[in-house]
């Protein structure tokens, strides 16, 4: 159960980091290109800490539990050979249905406004989430949360400023920011969806209470959008599924690109 919780957090960090990393060399201006890849590396750093912790948890499971944890073929092969898994195995050899990230973070970059909107929704969530997770009874998660909060505070500052800059900018930038905010809105509901894992982890004092975070998130998002002259979407229907392994088609493309090298040349280092 705790392993699922850690993997969900790790997958969010990995996929978000990968998405932002796709901007490398494509940013609208050198300085913002560097800003996004810096942020990407913050997410990837957090992903590494979490995957290392997840691997540690996995390797201490009983053989029976190990054999049913993942349905990814490549991981099952390693498990049946009795080999321990490491952070790279979890990142590069897992299939899409074993990924537990939010649908929001796998959405494509599209344009600058979409990238900003996705970051803004996620950063606002992360900021509140890691503030809560710092109180976790699990000391490893609490310390990862403490380190992450410093990084995420800056991420949120960056993305909030861009929402205001574009929203309260020219007619065109306002329109495009509003459109990105509208279209990604339906992926925000899943951020607060309490799965069985979330409920169990909260009960044990390990995980955060997402319903508590929800109202704070809405306040924070509304405050920035008001300054940005952006209208808060009113849609009630929300997409979900990522936290249970049901993803949008975009995840498959990310994994194909990200995992190709390790799949084609197993164990290669460079």
């Amino acid at each position, binding site marked *: 159960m705790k392993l699922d919780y850690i993997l969900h957090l790790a997958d969010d960090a990995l996929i978000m980091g990968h998405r932002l990393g796709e901007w490398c060399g494509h940013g609208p201006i050198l*300085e913002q290109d560097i800003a996004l890849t810096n942020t990407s590396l913050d997410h990837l750093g957090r992903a590494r800490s979490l995957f290392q912790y997840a691997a540690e948890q996995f390797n201490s499971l009983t053989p029976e539990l190990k054999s049913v944890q993942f349905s990814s073929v490549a991981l099952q092969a390693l498990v049946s050979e009795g080999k321990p898994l490491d952070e790279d195995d979890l990142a590069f050899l897992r299939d899409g249905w074993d990924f537990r990230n939010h649908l929001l973070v796998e959405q494509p970059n599209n344009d600058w406004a979409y990238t900003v909107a996705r970051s803004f929704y996620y950063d606002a969530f992360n900021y509140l989430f890691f503030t809560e997770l710092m109180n976790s009874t699990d000391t490893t998660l609490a310390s990862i949360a403490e380190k992450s909060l410093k990084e995420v505070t800056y991420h949120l500052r960056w993305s909030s400023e861009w929402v205001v800059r574009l929203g309260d900018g020219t007619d065109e930038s306002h329109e495009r920011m509003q459109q990105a905010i509208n279209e990604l809105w339906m992926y925000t509901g899943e951020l607060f969806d309490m799965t069985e894992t979330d409920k169990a982890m909260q009960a044990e004092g390990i995980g955060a209470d997402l319903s508590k975070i929800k109202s704070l998130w809405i306040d924070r998002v509304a405050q920035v959008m008001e300054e940005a002259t952006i209208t808060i979407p009113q849609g009630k229907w929300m997409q979900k599924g990522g936290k249970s392994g049901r993803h949008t088609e975009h995840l498959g493309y990310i994994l194909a690109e990200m995992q190709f090298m390790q799949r084609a040349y197993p164990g290669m280092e460079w």
Partner: protein
Amino acid sequence: MSQDINNKNEWPLWEVFIRSKAGLDHKHAGSLHAADADMALENARDVYTRRMEGVSIWVVESRHIRASDPGQSESLYEPANDKIYRHPTFYNLPDEVKYM
């Protein structure tokens, strides 16, 4: 240095000064483009402090800097060449005094 206000595609240039640790002065680190002062500070953070170079950042728009004319170097700086008495080189320092 004049700024072309008609060129809307180009963000203005800023000069960045970084203090490497408390107690030291800010030193010129380089320049960058940004739409305003807040963005210039953030860009400076992302571009110039990634390797723990700083604890404080100053930014100033490049057009506000008035630079001396290299063509006037002779009259500006060479007159100091023969005023060696301005350097306190003729004091004998006791061995006990360090860091001078």
